[in-house]
């Protein structure tokens, strides 16, 4: 029976080679698909019981292997929401029914509803801005960016530092700005713009007045309540604080810590850091001023940090955290099951899903403005193809020889 056995074996060989050719052609077709992982066909022998004197030819069976854990090269892309993963981990995306899948395809775009959708039509999943760090796979939700309205942030903190001239003359108590009298006089003045609850600008007048040796008074007023010639203001100072300077080096010695608490009209209470103030023998000059908060401003675009934090950037440069992209992985990524749309599903052989932040533990960092290219190498696919073609020819040759031999056998009788 071995002639027919040989024929069956060569047919199984041809089958195996054509399966391999399918894999190769799929690889070549997806050579430019973002996040595609090359598959390969592996063969295993199937032997039939053979004795010492006889060889029972078996056949070959094909197993498809997926190189899902392979890193593709990151290449530059045209959008901040084009994301590549440098290292392990997968994006978690939801299909139209909301079912989660894993993918490395990171060409996300913001759609009209604020979802980040990739080229396969899957929505990116993550956690909301204030979620805890220990969110599992089931706790992930579809990322939604709110870019419709305006965003305003009230001021809560700021810093102001300046040098006060040590040689200035002192002002008598009755004329200090804190007394809010028409005769008020001061040594130096500045103003700082802050934002109230609705994002309206409030200008604070800051009066710095020398009251004695190394001793100054800071008084803060709301500029909108200023009288026609400044003092008196129609409402009293928002805060008054006495500043003491160290005569040995001119640095602020009291209050400790150097913080002023200012109740912004119609706004939050603001903590103004004045610890950088100095009193030296130099003219008054402001050395730094910064306040948080911003006026109402429309959405401009998204930026994504390497740790997966998604920020909305507003037109005035303000940033607001919108959420965090979480990556997922499994113990055996190569055993994930590929599905249409360049996504992978968890199988019993791949193991349980692990969720975490990008850049931590087994998870790689997110690279914005980059996409992961396909792991297919055309040159090696082509060489494999030549090999497959030759192997197929050899199998068909074996079949042909077996047929010829069978012919000889059949014609013996004539």
């Amino acid at each position, binding site marked *: 029976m071995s002639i027919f056995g040989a024929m069956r074996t060569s047919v199984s060989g041809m089958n195996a080679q054509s399966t391999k050719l399918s894999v190769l052609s799929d690889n070549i077709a997806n050579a430019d698909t973002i996040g595609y992982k090359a598959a390969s066909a592996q063969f295993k022998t199937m032997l039939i019981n053979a004795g010492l004197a006889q060889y029972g030819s078996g056949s070959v069976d094909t197993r498809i292997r997926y190189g899902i854990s392979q890193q593709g090269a*990151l290449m530059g892309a045209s959008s901040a929401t084009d994301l590549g993963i440098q290292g392990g981990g997968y994006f978690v995306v939801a299909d139209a029914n909301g079912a989660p899948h894993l993918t490395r395809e990171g060409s996300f775009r913001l759609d009209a509803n604020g979802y980040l959708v990739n080229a396969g039509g899957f929505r990116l999943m993550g956690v909301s801005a204030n979620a805890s760090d220990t969110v599992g796979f089931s706790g992930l939700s579809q990322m939604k960016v709110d870019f419709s309205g305006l965003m305003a942030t009230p001021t809560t903190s700021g810093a102001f530092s300046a040098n006060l001239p040590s040689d200035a003359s002192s002002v008598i108590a009755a004329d200090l700005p804190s007394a809010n009298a028409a005769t008020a006089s001061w040594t130096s003045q500045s103003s700082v713009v802050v934002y109230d609850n609705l994002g309206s600008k409030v200008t604070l007048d800051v009066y710095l007045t020398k009251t004695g040796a190394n001793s100054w008074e800071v008084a803060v007023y709301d500029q909108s309540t200023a009288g026609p010639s400044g003092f008196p203001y129609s409402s009293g100072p928002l805060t008054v604080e006495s500043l003491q300077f160290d005569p040995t080096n001119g640095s602020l010695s009291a209050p400790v810590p150097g913080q002023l608490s200012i109740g912004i009209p119609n706004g939050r209470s603001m903590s103004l850091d004045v610890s950088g103030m100095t009193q030296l023998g130099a003219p008054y000059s402001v050395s730094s*001023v910064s306040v948080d908060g911003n006026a109402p401003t429309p959405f401009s675009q998204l*930026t994504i940090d390497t740790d997966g934090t998604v920020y909305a950037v507003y037109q005035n440069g303000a940033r607001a955290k919108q959420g965090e992209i979480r990556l997922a992985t499994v113990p055996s990524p190569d055993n994930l099951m590929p599905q249409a749309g360049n996504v992978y599903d968890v199988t019993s052989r791949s193991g349980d899903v692990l969720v975490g932040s990008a850049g931590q533990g087994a998870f790689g960092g997110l690279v914005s403005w980059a996409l992961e290219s396909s792991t297919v190498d055309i040159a090696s696919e082509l060489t494999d193809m030549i090999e497959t073609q030759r192997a197929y020819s050899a199998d068909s040759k074996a079949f042909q020889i077996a047929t010829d031999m069978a012919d000889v056998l059949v014609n013996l009788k004539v």
Partner: protein
Amino acid sequence: MTLQAAFRTARSALAANAFQTATVSRNISGADANGYARKIVLVEPSLSGPTKATRIMRATDQSLQSAALDASSVASGDEAVSKALDALQSIVGQASDGVSPSAMLSAFRTALLHAAAAPQDAAGLAAAVSRAGSLVASLNQASASIQEVRAQADQDMASSVSTINALLKSFDQTNHAAISGSASGQDVSDLLDRRDAILSDLAKEVSISTIIGSNGDMSIYTDSGVALYQGTPRAVSMEPTTTFAAGVTGNAVYIDGVAVTGPSATMAPRGGALSGLAQIRDTYTTTLQSQIDEVAVGLINAFSQQSAAGSVRTGLFTWSGGPSMPASGTQGVAASIGVDPSAQGNPAFLRDGGIGGDPNFVANATGSSSYSARLYDLLVSLDAQQSFSAPPLPAHLNVSDLAAQSQGWLEGARQTAADKSISANAILVQTNTALTNSSGVNIDDQMSKMLDLENSYQASAKMMAMVDSMYAALFSAVK
């Protein structure tokens, strides 16, 4: 590494190269632009090898830039002072040109001397009175011119204020665009150039110092510490004065509610056109005005008439408050000083006294036509020392010396201002050269970079051609 990777690397190298070439051409085209800082491209290999990220940077030198802003403020302030003093001097006149009050005064004195030598000569007396007329005309003219210069300075201040407001407004827009752009990772270098150009325009009007915040936000203060821009532009305002006369004080300029010009200003900026113009309006012109007012007061005093009963009234020279005598320090006398109409009608009054028609003041009791005692008395009185309050000139002088010294004071002030302006300009040129050397565009440098780029572009293109031929070899192997 695959052949495709080689392709991609070559492609990104071409892209980076194109970006650099674009930057070189940008640098060359911006070489002469105000505020343009040289752009430098940073080409960095990315983590994964084949891609190249490109970033653009500006060559800037913060300390040189702020030195250049300071120098430009000082230069434009000094230039404003120098120009206005030049104008003032060309109107008021110089000692040598024969039309200045000082020259007119000496011509009048000579005519008076001739009249005293020949008191019976009616023509001589008439000439003296006519010279007196020219003298008061020159004082009137000088006073009017001084006030014109003040009014001009006031107008220039008002237009400087509106320039500052306009600059701050466009700074606000540019600053916001730059912050927003840099927050979203765009190339904002052109906006930063624009912002620097606005700063250099602003520094010409008022001396400034700047603070850059963590997100690229910039705050502007005057060098005296008054906020001009922090989050929002601060209001800069000045009420222009329509008519100036001696004693009228121009309105102060307010920045953020703080007076920055005038005597009450404790936080006045130290440079810029605004402060130069304020010095002209509030200091130089008022000083000069008070000096020529004192010349006028001195003249009226020297020619005053005293009756036998001891009462005193104005003589040849009178003023808007005549016939009472003006006190030393009275403002605006130079504008109103005139020759008494009765002396103009009858020059003999000069010889005989009694100008104004009051017989109590007649000195020539006999009516003799050769009476010269009164004329000699007047000459003595004209040359006599009087007390003046015209700082910085001495308190005790005769009128001629006062007029001459006032002339000298103006000439001195003009000379000092011109010298300061020249040296400020020299410093400005020097700092600007240093700034251009450090952050400007060197065309030679850019040309050599262009050659480099050309070579590396060719190399990358060659690389692609080679990979392509390797593929071709592979494809031909597949039969």
